[in-house]
């Protein structure tokens, strides 16, 4: 009897439990496969004016006016110095940046705080449509500026000639003769001075870090090293640019159309 009882246990352990585990895991796998292949259920009652992110059915141009326009303006012209104008921006550049925000590789401070969440669930098609929408908007008409301001004169000089002795290459060699940009090189003409200064500052001091919450996750604050990997070319160019010159060139760019 004792032997029989002892014999029962191995049977249970080695012959009954494994099938149960296998059946269960197969069931879960089958369930997951099934549910993963159901097309996402839409909650949209208002697809032409939806503010919904994470739904492939909302067209990029709807997102542009309903979501992005809240900060960047319906014409891609922002009202805040911290928020870049997108009007007339290069389409390829916009596509790249939205992808970089989506995969969290572009990590300047405001990018982390504002854009990671916005771009997190954009589809490739939505990114194309958004880039298309904003690249087609008429560029900002800058307000009239005093051309004799020594800062603007200095900015113009750097834009057109660079500072060869400091290794600063002239901006117009990549950003176009009037700063309108070229494919993946962004339009810088008419951009917000504050925003340009921030970005230049990022490349001047590439190892800035901050302990912060990201992507709406208040549970896991972490140290973010600010970076713009696609703009790494800029690091060498502005490495020796002084803060004053960075500001001068940003001011000058904001006056271009």
């Amino acid at each position, binding site marked *: 009897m004792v032997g029989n009882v002892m014999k029962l246990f191995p049977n249970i352990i080695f012959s009954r439990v494994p099938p149960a585990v296998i059946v269960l895991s197969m069931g879960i796998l089958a369930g997951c496969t099934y549910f993963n292949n159901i097309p996402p259920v839409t909650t949209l009652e208002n697809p032409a004016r939806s503010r*919904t992110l994470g739904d492939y059915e909302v067209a990029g141009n709807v997102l542009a006016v309903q979501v992005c326009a809240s900060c960047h303006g319906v014409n891609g012209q922002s*009202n805040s110095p911290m928020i870049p104008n997108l009007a007339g921006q290069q389409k390829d550049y916009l596509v790249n940046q939205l992808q970089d925000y989506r995969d969290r590789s572009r990590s300047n401070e405001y990018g982390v*705080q504002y854009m990671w*969440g916005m771009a997190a669930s954009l589809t490739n098609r939505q990114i194309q449509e958004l880039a298309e929408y904003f690249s087609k908007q008429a560029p900002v008409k800058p307000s009239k500026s005093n051309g004799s301001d020594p800062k603007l004169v200095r900015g113009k000089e750097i834009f057109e000639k660079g500072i060869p002795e400091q290794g600063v290459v002239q901006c117009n060699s990549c950003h176009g003769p009037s700063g309108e940009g070229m494919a993946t090189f962004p339009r810088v003409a008419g951009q917000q001075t504050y925003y340009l200064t921030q970005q230049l500052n990022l490349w001047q001091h590439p190892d800035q870090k901050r302990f912060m*919450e990201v992507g*709406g996750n208040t549970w896991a604050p972490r140290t973010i090293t600010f970076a713009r990997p696609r703009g790494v070319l800029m690091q060498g160019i502005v490495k020796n640019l002084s803060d004053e010159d960075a500001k001068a060139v940003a001011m000058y760019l904001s006056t271009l159309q």
Partner: protein
Amino acid sequence: MNSINKLKTLPLSLLGLLLFFISFNHAEALPLFSRQTGQNCVACHAGGQYPELTPYGRYFKLMAYTLGERTDLPISVQFVGGAATSTNGNNGTGQVHQSGKLEPNYLFLDVGGKITDNFGAFSQWYYAIDEQVSGKGSIPNQNQFAADIQDWRYADHFVGNSADTVKDFIWGASLNNYAGATDVWNSSPMWMYPYMGSTRNYSTYGLPYNTRLSAYSVHNPGYGVYGYVNQNFYGEVNLYQSGGSGPLSWMTYPASNSNPNSAPVYLQGLNPYFRFAYQSDEHDGHNWMLGFLGANINQYSSCNTVADSSSYKGTAPTCGGPVNSPALSAGTVKYQDRAIDGQYQYLVDPHTVTAQARYTKENISDPTGILYGNPNNKTNSFMSKVSYVYNATYGAAVAFQNITGTGDGRYGVNALTGANLNPNSTAWIPSIWYQPLQNLRITYQYTAFTKYNGGTINYNGLGTNASANNASWLYLWLAM
């Protein structure tokens, strides 16, 4: 934030709180809206000083909290706790000798956010933590789960061309439970500094009277519509009604006809609240707003208390008839409030400068003497605040509040002369705070009265000076 509490043993509460938070860890319990948009708090809150809104935050609220991705777990929790001083004046909660005691004050539960394409909610509930009372008095609603601010709304947003007259139009409808809960400017009665006060000491809230338009402290269901044109012109009308029973009574939970600690406030018919405002475009980081708002509220007396600050003093409710029954034949107290308000903001990192002000005239008609001795009373109040935040981390603010009005027995009687007191009071409320993370704020807040009930020295004939009502409060505000 309008809540009445008590406290428990701190270690136990903190342990419970910790367990509560840990239990949510795997479910990623995050502040609701931040999770929905994936953006940090500073996107919607000016310099991170919640609940103050940025232009984008106002937009988010007016679009019915629907921007973003609906979350699987639409829940947030907030905790407020700290140490307040007691006062020797008459603005305490009837609790003495507990200055500087570290205690939890509030636990909030927030649910809602995006529900459908056009429908969303801000639904805040609180648990009033049991406070230990020594000395006299009892505080109603201790250990009670209750409905705080509710704002359930539907909104649609039309965007036109730059050539159109109406380039941008939001319209919406709201079901809410405080007049002004729907507002998006922080000069409005429900959302003005100081944003938090201690239940241990009501001086931390500022003026003893009319800190919101007094009738606005009435907690009742209302519904209304609003429109926002070109991000400049705003208009809103709401109607408020009694909520003690019927399908909307959850909005005033736990006030009920059978809860002796929490009487429903009975309003006569539908009571209008309106709000109009002009919001400037943003320019170089500056924006400003100028507005006009008001309400007419007719309130029955009930067999229990009528919502007023005297309940803060811990007087036990007295009742001749059935508990909480409305006195429908005894007439009403009629409040008529008219206010102008304004706000200024400068928002360019690392600097955040914001300022708000509101001037309110209130006429109170009480011909049958329900609350007041005089058939007609008036108050004029001025509330203001300016604040500066550096890098969304270090902040300082100061408020100036002043109220004047007719003398009435309701404000008390001078013990020496027997003359009625008046509401005339002046308060300064400076504060400083440190916000190491966007969801964690440590604040020290001080309230200094230079005038109280019409006087600075011995205002009540009992030798009490205005400064005896001064209060300080060091507290922590955590949102998850």
